[in-house]
């Protein structure tokens, strides 16, 4: 069924357009002077000003691996994150921990752990799925590189970003 759109009946001065034009000019002029006086300033001058201190707690930046207080890598190479990763950015090659190692009872650890930051979509599913609380999304957002190879974060780089996490870190508590 057709709907008849009621168009407003314009008064003669409205049909002249001129009042509306002057009104519009007034609005733009007000914005012009507001911006000039710095009152309406909203733009952040990016490389000089950064919003690091304004990032919310739940910000999802680059994913990274963490170690615990004994410098043991928390990751046990269960590969759940690799399987759940929607863009398949994570590649893990597990290895067995040798029997004479201090942490031999853990059985497995990642031999290589690579996240392709070109593929990563910062969805946070790896963090959510991790049973060992070993991978977290940090607040780093400016991940740049001049080649594809440079954009693949290997294990060292991931631990470098992630750092150390002390104590039981539940992903739901404020300590995260």
């Amino acid at each position, binding site marked *: 069924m057709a709907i008849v759109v009621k168009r407003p009946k314009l008064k003669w001065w409205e049909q002249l357009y001129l009042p509306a034009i002057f009104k519009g*000019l007034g609005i733009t002029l007000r914005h012009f002077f507001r911006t000039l006086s710095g009152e309406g300033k909203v*733009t952040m001058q990016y490389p000089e000003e950064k919003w690091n201190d304004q990032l919310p707690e739940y910000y999802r930046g680059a994913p990274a691996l963490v170690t615990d207080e004994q410098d043991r890598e928390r990751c046990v190479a269960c590969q759940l994150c690799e399987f759940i990763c929607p863009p398949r950015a994570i590649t893990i090659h597990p290895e067995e921990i040798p029997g004479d190692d201090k942490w031999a009872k853990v059985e497995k650890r990642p031999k290589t752990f690579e996240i392709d930051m070109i593929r990563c979509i910062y969805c946070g599913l790896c963090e959510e799925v991790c049973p060992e609380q070993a991978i977290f999304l940090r607040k780093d957002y400016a991940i740049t590189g001049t080649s594809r190879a440079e954009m693949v974060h290997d294990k060292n780089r991931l631990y470098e970003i992630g750092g150390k996490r002390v104590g039981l870190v539940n992903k739901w508590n404020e300590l995260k």
Partner: protein
Amino acid sequence: MDWAFLAISTVKIIGLVFLTILPMVAYSVWAERRVSAAIQDRVGPNRVGWAGLLQPMADGLKFILKEDLTPGHVRKTYYWMAPALTMIPSLLTCAVLPFGSRLFGEKMVIADLDVGPLFVFAIASLSVYGIVLAGWASNSKYPFLGGVRSTSQMISYEISLGLSIVPLLMIFGTLNLGEIVQYQAQNGWTLLPLWGEGLSLKGMLLAIPMFISFVIFTTSIFAETNRLPFDLPECETELVAGYHTEYSSMKFALFFLGEYAAMIIGSGLAVTLFLGGWSLPFGWLAPESTTAEVPFWHGLVHIGVFFAKVIAFILFFIWIRWSLPRFRYDQLMRLGWVFFFEIAVINVLLTAGIMMLPLGK
């Protein structure tokens, strides 16, 4: 033809066109970007140089270094001619603009023609050929549509543009732009008749048709220079980029600069005809006649005043552009043919009627 005249003309041409108008073109692009940014609560280009003042240089460098691509499907001759045909008429028209009174005893106008406004209209309407040729030679649909629109738009608005200044010429009784400005310096600007003969009752009455003329003239100048709200030949939302869709690099830049040059000349003409050209208000520092000697510093002040007015008018252009939405095509034609044409004709009669009134000189 004496050599002194040639040398002086060359100095004037280089001084006005190459050292003043072209830098103004570059910087009006910068002003456009900064002002539009301020209007939209943004910052605009502020990185290259202080407050982005070197941005035009960077833009120019970029344009020169870009690949100049000629698509395979174009008519090469016309395709190459078109950008020049847009740029040159815009620059030619500034030959008759009086940009100052006198300096070193020389009139500050390149060609002191007795048909100033006619010359401007004749040359300015040539620039439509550049656009039409660009649209036609590009041999693709959006440039073609842009070219067609531009033709009809320019033809429609040239009539009201010409008619709108007839009342002025009736009052001034001359077509020499220098004398027109001289008249305004002594007897009140066309829009501000507050001194000299303009202060009489008749002068006040004549300000009414003059204001109507000014509105029609300014709107038509907007349409002639393809500026928003009349930028239908290139409206990027419908026609990609209109007539210069297929152009790249410096050829595109020529279209771009041609548009801004036309805007500056249009502003200059509006200032000369309606806002007293180089003259200060209330007859301050006004020379007695066009032939009278002008002190050196008066001449400098007059040049400064002219360019200050032109810059103010350019800012007005920019302000309008970022405030008003584009007209629909039929609205544009209706405005040109049904309203402005008729109002301009009636305005001529109105002015003649007021001039006939027995109110004394």
